[in-house]
């Protein structure tokens, strides 16, 4: 029973990053607070993981101000969407091949 783990992107190895991508896959945009609530992580932790995904160009960041308070919105890029879908496919195949 050989399983290829190629195709599993490193960016998705982490639970928080996988969570961010999952949430953004079904929401056009999400702000920092919402992401934090869903993932139940600290500000610093979330910011680090977001930065990593940003560096991969998987997510897009839009900064703006609402009532003079900074509001940052995140969305998935086309590249991120493709990578996430590929990741799902690989996961699916691994599980199928082990059955």
């Amino acid at each position, binding site marked *: 029973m050989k399983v290829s*783990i190629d195709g599993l992107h490193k960016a998705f190895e982490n*639970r928080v990053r*996988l*969570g961010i991508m*999952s*949430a953004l*896959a*079904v*929401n056009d945009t*999400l*702000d920092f607070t*919402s992401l934090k*609530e*869903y*993932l*139940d992580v600290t500000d610093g932790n979330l910011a680090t993981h977001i930065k990593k995904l940003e560096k991969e160009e998987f997510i897009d960041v839009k900064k703006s101000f609402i009532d003079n308070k900074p509001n940052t919105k995140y969305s998935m890029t086309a590249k991120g969407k493709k990578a996430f879908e590929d990741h*799902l496919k690989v*996961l*699916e195949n*691994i*599980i199928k091949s*082990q059955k």
Partner: protein
Amino acid sequence: MKEEQDYIRDIAEIRSMMERSSKFLSLSGLAGIMAGVYALAGAWVAHVYLGFKPDGVGDSAVYNGQYSNLPQLMLLAVVVLILAIGTAVFLSAKKAQKRGEKAWNTTSKRMVAHMSVPLVAGGILISVFIVKGLLILIAPLSLLFYGLALYNASKFSYEDVKFLGMIQMGLGLLGTWYTGYGLLFWAIGFGVVHIVYGIYMHLRYER
């Protein structure tokens, strides 16, 4: 190397995150039951004490727009509405807390925003009908627009809400045809159907 269970867990987590971030799942079945009870009580008071009897054609006061207890009827409707919404908000907040979520989050805001569009449009239309004395249609129209609101909301919550919405719309439309049974359909929709739906949701998701 990761084990098979790890991959399965990954998929389970992805699924759960997608659901949690796009659907508001803290709607309380118990609140549905309570809303039904308030509605039945309200319909009973309207019928027995306020003489809201849309049955009978032509000579009925409701039919002619000569209905004299209108202010009391509207007050009653507002009280029933506030009780139902208040209970729903309270019980949903409690349920959300139990699930470790905030009740007023992105998903619940989105759900409320999508519900409010048909509700506001329906509210304005019903107000116009009240002013014009077309009281016979207010009960069926409230069912119809409430059903539309639920249908909209179902995209952001349990799929079951969609069927509740369709039943309410159906009853509302029937009520516009059989106007004499407007209040009866209203009592079935807001009362009986809510109670049945609430029990179903409670048994299915809250045990």
